[in-house]
């Protein structure tokens, strides 16, 4: 079965400092991985996705993630946090085993950005 584990439930950074949100995955297939962001009372927005092309994936708003198969990780980073980055972030794997396209979400990481 495929799954994702987000290693931190809450991350706090100061504005202008780097952001690191950690995600490990478990998959018996070559996975498709995503990061979604959810701002309060808003829908889920796709930040970036990995689908077996380049291992370093660049997304919107300056975020990027690196797929590391040897470490089964897909950590999300950003060089410099902005106040508007404060939100809930979800690491997600697509259930390619079932071929339904079902998305399996991690528990989420709350990012707090302090001024």
């Amino acid at each position, binding site marked *: 079965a495929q799954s994702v584990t987000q290693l931190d439930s809450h991350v706090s950074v100061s504005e202008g400092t780097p952001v690191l949100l950690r995600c490990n995955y478990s998959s018996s297939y070559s996975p498709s991985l995503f990061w979604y962001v959810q701002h309060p009372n808003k*829908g889920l927005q796709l930040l970036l996705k990995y689908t077996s092309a380049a291992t370093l994936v660049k997304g919107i708003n300056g975020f990027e993630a690196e797929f590391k198969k040897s470490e089964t990780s897909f950590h999300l980073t950003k060089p410099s946090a902005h106040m508007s980055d404060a939100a809930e972030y979800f690491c997600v794997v697509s259930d390619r085993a079932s071929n339904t396209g079902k998305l399996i*979400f991690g528990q989420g990481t709350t990012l707090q950005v302090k001024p």
Partner: protein
Amino acid sequence: EAGVAQSPRYKIIEKRQSVAFWCNPISGHATLYWYQQILGQGPKLLIQFQNNGVVDDSQLPKDRFSAERLKGVDSTLKIQPAKLEDSAVYLCASSNNRGKDYGYTFGSGTRLTVV
């Protein structure tokens, strides 16, 4: 393009009452998903439609939840009777090719509170 539309945005009901949620996916998207997001958790798939047929409803509590997708477009999700533990945000998402293009668009969700 217009996004995924959901209504209502908020709903408060008493336990044992019934409630229905509506979703209008992006035009042309054949795949439609309903997810349940309990506070503090990642979204969990309830049911997936491909056109008007059910692909996956293994996580749907069928004794109280039902869903339909008439004519392969709009969908409704119903709970009858509601329990306290059904309090959650119900998210609808759509995709134009399940699992193949890995593009999913989420609605803003319906926040249900059962008292």
